């Protein structure tokens, strides 16, 4: 896949999920309409999406940073600390996804 298309795809998916997660959370709150088990399914799906897409995005970012970091270290080994810091930065994305998924899973379900 073309790298630009891949980047657009990852960005689009992330954007979609950020829109989708609150929507699904609202949907979970509307359990009076859909029933308890549907709420659990919706929450599980939303949490899974939040976790997986953020992990994919972090992986994509780390792959790019990793290859550039390897190139930098080949020529300038003294920059190793900076490369490690930059390599670790995208972990924040997956941590945020993890937090979002925890919040979704722990959202209370009111019986119908």
């Amino acid at each position: 896949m073309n790298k630009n298309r891949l980047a657009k795809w990852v960005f689009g998916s992330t954007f979609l999920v950020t829109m989708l997660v609150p929507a699904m959370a609202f949907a979970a709150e509307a359990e009076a309409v859909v029933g308890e088990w549907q709420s659990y399914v919706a929450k599980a799906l939303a949490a899974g999406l939040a976790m997986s897409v953020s992990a994919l995005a972090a992986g994509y970012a780390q792959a790019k940073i990793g290859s550039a970091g390897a190139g930098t270290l080949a020529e300038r080994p003294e920059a190793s600390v900076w490369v490690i810091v930059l390599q670790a930065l995208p972990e924040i994305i997956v941590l945020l996804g993890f937090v979002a998924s925890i919040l979704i899973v722990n959202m209370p379900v009111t019986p119908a």
Partner: protein
Amino acid sequence: MSVTTTSSRNRSPASPKDYGYANARIRGMRSRLLSRTFLDGLIAEQSVQRLVQEMDGTEYTSDLEDALIHGIDATSVDVALRNNMVQTFQKIMSFLNAEAEYLVTTLLGRWDIFNLKTILRAKHMHLPLDELKDGLLPAGQLTPVDLEALAAAEDVRTVVDIAVTWGLPMASALREGHAEFMRTGELASLELALDRYYSEWAKARLSRRGANMRMARKVLATQVDVANLVMVLRLQSADIETIDVDQYFLEGGADITRELYMVLSKMSDIDEVLERLRGTPYGRALDDVSIKYLEQNSISVFERALEDLFMRRTLGIAKGDPLGIGVAVSYLWAKQNEITNLRIIVKGKAVGMPEDRVREELILV
């Protein structure tokens, strides 16, 4: 014979890869290019020996150590600088992805043409081998060994024969140009055949789609424009009634179209040409040196200004393209520029050239 112009270097850029690794590495290498201050320090040195000592600790140290075993002189330093450039270019080629290698090979092809033209001119004018070697810059696909073999040829015909025997891609162009050369005795026909071959070859190779292809096409188009403008300026001092000026036009330029080229070549003097070029990207660069031209009365002033403009544009190409081919192209040109400048300084020191004159000769530092 180690020319690779026809086989591995011609592989298709069907699977472009990540530029991150190569570009980060090249940026690291770029950080080790010599600064203006350092070059000023070299110019201020009193001798080649002191200059070599000053260069200790730079990228050139190991090459200088290898080349200076038999004594420190300008020729040995020159060999060291050329070796360094060849190794640097080979190193870059070794880690570029398929697309980048394809594009860089295409753009660096100009150096093969430059070197072949230098050899042909030297053979035509019966210049000594040492003098000829000084003019060669092995930045293309022809290795120093190939160039040495070509330079050792007896005459123009032998150079063409060697090129044909080796199966160099430009051999057919050389053969055609040589037939014309034999008929007219004008070396310009051979040079024109080479120029035309390169512009068509490079244009065909860069005809695919994509941002990197587009960028490489831009570099090539500027290069062709510069070549056409240089030709227009040279024609000003020639009797154009007896010359078919159209045949000297090279296809593939961006701003200098065939129509504009024809209009410019028929103008009566340089002022008119400069006036007409004012609306183009080349107008300002030429205007800036017009006074210098009046002082020196030499077209080479304009040629130098156009070459500088091309260099400036190519060096700046990385600014708008941090994740594409621009970084590699810009570095290769910067490195070649640095080597040229160092060679000028070393030669200047060796012949006792005044510091101001050396500074004047340096290119865009």
